[in-house]
């Protein structure tokens, strides 16, 4: 398991390669990369700055991975989230999940992203032609996370 919160860029290929290096039990790696868009809520976005809660962020991400491990049989998980100022097109977040079979890797990758969006303490502030604004949480993100609540 690898959790990183960093200002620098990450390399998807290198992260995925590192997961399977030296082992032959992994049959599937599913990955997701989130990028900074140039448009949100009808305004152009020139840049964004990501703030977080040092300490709680790492703890919240570790908890998400523990929950994913409890639901699926996972062989490795990598989560990298960037902070600081990012430009449109820049990668923001990477989640990669390794398992024996694809079903678990796909499901766990989506689960971790959905929960990260609603539970990990990051906040985005956008620079737009109309000025700076904090991004508001979306009800659709809550709905996406709620899909995973087990009866």
């Amino acid at each position, binding site marked *: 398991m690898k959790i990183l919160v960093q200002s620098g860029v990450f390399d998807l290929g290198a992260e995925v390669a590192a997961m399977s290096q030296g082992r032959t039990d992994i049959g599937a790696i599913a990955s997701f990369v*989130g990028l900074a868009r140039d448009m949100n809520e009808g305004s152009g976005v020139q840049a964004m700055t*990501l*703030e*977080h*809660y040092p*300490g*709680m962020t790492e*703890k*919240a991400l570790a908890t998400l991975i523990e929950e994913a491990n409890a639901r699926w049989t996972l062989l490795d998980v990598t989560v990298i*989230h960037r902070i600081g100022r990012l430009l449109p097109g820049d990668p*923001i*977040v990477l989640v990669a999940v390794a398992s024996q079979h694809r079903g678990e890797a796909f499901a766990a990758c989506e689960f971790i*992203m959905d929960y*990260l*969006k*609603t*539970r*990990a*303490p*990051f*906040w*985005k*502030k956008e620079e737009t032609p109309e000025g700076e604004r*904090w*991004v*508001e*949480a979306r009800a659709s993100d809550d709905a996406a996370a709620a899909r995973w609540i087990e009866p």
Partner: protein
Amino acid sequence: MKLRVLYFARLRERFGVAEETLDFAGVTAADLISQLQARGSVWAEELAAGRAFRVAVNQDIVALDMALPDQAEVAIFPPVTGG
């Protein structure tokens, strides 16, 4: 008891403070919110009933009826928007 209280993102900017140490005579997170609301102005506005904010105690998000331990690190912040 003493609490260390942290604010993040929009709330940090609106309150004009990132961190403070508070004397707290109440019991729950809701009591702390009431104490902060009593400061008036932006505090009353941002922490009013119906406004969306989250409270974390010792780095776990909690419900407002959670009792606060002495020396707790309490954080108050807007709903998260990472990813």
